[in-house]
């Protein structure tokens, strides 16, 4: 049992597989908690209680028939509302996708079902994953379960809040510039952004295709690993999916950090709040005390990450979001001619932040500006990859805070986009490099709200960074 008093996912699945508890009972427990608190949290755009009950009954029937429903048997999982679910509304928290029901499941959704998991609902998010607080959602903000006057982070704020509030033991999010790790940190849960290409993007509604990656939220490192093992592995439907077998990091989590070389990333301490810096240093001490060698290291290139990201991601987004034109699906504003119909549909369907990024992205890809902006950003991206490669020549993993501060108040940054963008300053470089990183809760700040520590590693080092997270998790209870 975890500190919240809820069973962990692995234990739930074991219980269901062994017949000790039914998937239906497990599900009702979570649905009760949703009933009790969803009104104040708004973690979900849609709770699919009936579909979930059907799925749970099917799992129970398989157990009764002597079959094994899989490693996530009967475990409720909340899905970010940018993951396509067949016949179930998928909106990206945008008015423009109102009423659209995908005719197909995302690969991760199919894999969850094959592992016996029970999809419990679609979680709120910043519109099209553009934001760091879940406040750009067309369905209204999600609130942080630890303090409902605060944001849960974003863009996967609904998924992070759902796990933190005990609405589901597991959730899936997507991370383009920190959208899993930053809300995980602000909500006090574990969030893993896997190596680009390890989890299929087929069925993930794109924000910035070269950066997007699906990953797990959980209350424990072991549960996040379990979920990652289920959703990962090659998918022929995604051309950027790596030709590798499914990951198997669950079995290596307890190997400790003896002899591991850990670098504290100085650039990520700069600009972070004092309490966050203090907790980061404490985490380093824990690792040193557990046998790792810890040193501070500078990778100056990562300071360029934010600027490069806000050229590359909007550039790709301006193209990815072109298809929402009212012709084939979603919202359509009727008009006399096609161009007016498309223009009105987009003007009324998209929110302000999405429009800002489409305009920015269109601008940076335009003839005459592309080389100065977009192509320059690509050169910076290569520099960041080189900077990390240099650091990983000396260190196995890098360590720093996930976010510069604990959860901020609702509305605090909505009028100042740049301040909002800065809350992703520590998470963005990882996406630009395509590397994995995990945020693990490590105590609380001066305001009593959770602080997350981020562990970064080179490509395909999920096993290693999750070993480090396991050690911090075991020693992070002290505040």
């Amino acid at each position: 049992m975890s500190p919240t008093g809820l069973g962990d996912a692995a234990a739930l699945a074991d219980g269901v597989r062994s017949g000790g508890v039914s998937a239906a009972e497990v599900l009702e427990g979570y649905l009760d908690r949703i009933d009790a608190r969803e009104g104040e949290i708004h973690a979900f755009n849609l709770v699919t209680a009936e579909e979930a009950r059907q799925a749970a009954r099917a799992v129970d029937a398989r157990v009764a028939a002597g079959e094994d429903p899989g490693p996530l048997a009967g475990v409720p999982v909340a899905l970010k509302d940018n993951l396509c679910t067949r016949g179930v509304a998928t909106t990206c928290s945008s008015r423009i996708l109102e009423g659209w029901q995908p005719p197909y499941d995302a690969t991760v959704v199919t894999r969850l079902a094959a592992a016996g998991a029970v999809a419990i609902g679609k979680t709120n998010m910043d519109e099209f994953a553009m934001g760091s607080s879940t406040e750009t959602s067309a369905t209204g903000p999600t609130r942080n379960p630890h303090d409902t006057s605060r944001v849960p982070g974003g863009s996967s704020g609904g998924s992070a809040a759902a796990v933190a509030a005990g609405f589901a033991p597991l959730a899936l999010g997507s991370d383009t510039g920190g959208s899993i790790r930053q809300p995980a940190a602000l909500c006090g849960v574990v969030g893993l952004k896997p190596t680009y290409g390890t989890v299929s993007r087929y069925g993930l509604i794109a924000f910035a295709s070269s950066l997007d990656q699906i990953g797990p939220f959980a209350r424990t490192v072991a549960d996040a690993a379990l979920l990652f093992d289920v959703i990962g592995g090659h998918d022929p439907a995604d051309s950027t999916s790596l030709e590798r077998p499914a990951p198997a990091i669950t079995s290596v989590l307890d190997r400790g950090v003896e002899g591991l070389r850990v670098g504290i990333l100085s650039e990520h301490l700069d600009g972070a709040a004092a309490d966050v810096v203090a907790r980061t240093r404490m985490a380093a001490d824990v690792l040193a005390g557990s046998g790792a060698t810890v040193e501070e290291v500078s990778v100056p290139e990562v300071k360029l990450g934010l600027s490069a990201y806000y050229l590359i991601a909007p550039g790709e987004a301006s193209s990815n979001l072109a298809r929402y034109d009212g012709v084939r699906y979603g919202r359509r504003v009727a008009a006399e001619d096609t161009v007016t119909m498309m223009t009105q549909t987009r003007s009324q369907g998209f929110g302000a932040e999405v429009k800002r990024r489409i305009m920015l992205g269109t601008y940076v890809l335009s003839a005459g500006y592309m080389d100065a902006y977009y192509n320059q950003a690509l050169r910076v991206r290569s520099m960041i990859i080189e900077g990390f490669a240099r650091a990983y020549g000396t260190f196995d993993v890098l360590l720093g805070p996930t976010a510069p501060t604990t959860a901020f108040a609702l509305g605090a940054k909505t009028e100042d986009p740049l301040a909002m963008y800065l809350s992703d300053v520590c998470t963005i470089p990882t996406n630009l490099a395509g590397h994995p990183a995990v945020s693990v809760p490590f105590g609380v700040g001066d305001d009593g709200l959770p602080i997350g520590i981020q562990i970064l590693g080179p490509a395909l080092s999920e096993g290693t960074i999750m070993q480090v997270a396991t050690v911090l998790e075991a020693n992070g209870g002290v505040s």
Partner: protein
Amino acid sequence: MKDGWVMVIGLEVHCELKTATKLFCGCPNLFGDEPNTNICPVCLGLPGSLPVLNERAVEMAMAIGTALNCEIRPSTFHRKNYFYPDQAKDYQISQYDEPLNANGYLVLPDGFRVGIERAHMEEDTGKTSHAGTSGRIHGADYSLVDYNRSGVPLVEIVSGPDMRTGEQARAYVTELRAILVATGASDGKMEEGSMRVDANVSVRRSEDEPFGTRCEIKNLNSVRSLGRAIEYEAERQIALIESGESVVQQTRHWDEDAGRTSALRSKEEAYDYRYFLEPDLVPLVPDAEWIDRVASSLDPMPAARRAALVDLFATDGGVSDAQQDLVTTVVDLSLDPLVIAAASAGVAPSLALARTANEAAKSAEAAGRLDPASFVALLALEESGALTATQAKTVLAELLEAGGGDPAAIAKARGFEAMSTDSLAAAVSEAIDAHPDEWSRFCQGDEKDEKKLTGFFTGLVMKATKGQADGKAVAAELQRRRG
């Protein structure tokens, strides 16, 4: 072409590949079906869908590149962004600055060499049809989009600005079409849109001057309209310049009925396509082994096949101009295997070529399916004198209609049996007896008169024998009797 002016022509040809499935999904590559039946999340551009490159389409594109003497190179895909209802994602996936095939050439039948700048892969759009006025108060028009064509694989072949006459442009498209068909990558049907040609045309006063401002002409639906449009456009540009105006770079639409081009959009209004590397695909880097495999599986190209036919006449002093045209026809229709088979079996190449180009070509599709063995057997019957030319043509027509068969059996069923020498002699005697004046002129006549009279008597004998007589045998009999 007006004196003192030179035309410069470059052509862009879009060719649909004959793959079983589309470029980035598994949907059938069939867009004549009921609208919007061959579609899926990928080719409909649904949120969350991703493209996966069709390997067979890559092989066909490499085959085209090989046939056009291109370098086959590591390549990438870009997004070409523009809003249009039949563009499912509102961007087209296309190769941009790193095409699969580059720096090739095509040699026209007359030996003129046209450079091929690139032959790159891209996806086709859906097809919009605009419905007419409804008759309601606002007379509202509406448009329908069929996405069956969305994602069909295309190769765009871009020539250098190397052609100088409408005739060269026509020859280029004709030869390119034959090459595309020979690779098996395309059916090359310009009228049905599986091969679409855009022409870039400019004029200048001499070869030494820099290129003039060019216009791109679209909507060229046949080789004939290509030639007409190019010539019209060149005259239009010359008239502009000579009247002191200048040519504006623009895209122009060819109106086949009116026989003129008109402006679609000028450079100032041109789209900014905001090309950038397609992040949903990885670079396409064919290895040497794959390139070799594609190259070695290619059938011989039209030029080589024409040369092979001409070679058959080497011992007879080569082909005449008229026969050269027959050679071109036979290869364009892919009927050269019939000629080769007959010649290898000992049939005279001139007979094999003539029967193929003049008779078999009339139903080229059936001829393409004809078993060469029955064609060879038929020509052998004709050559031996067992069938007259007229009879042989009749039997061939029947063979083609029936899709094959035994020519001897067909001849027998039709009552085509060679006349005995006696009955031929009798028929000739009858003709001579009926026309003594002509016969005496034949016996004394000059060469020209003799030829004419041979035809006259042969015609009489043919008529009397209902075409059963062999014209050559009649002529021989006439000569024998004259002594």
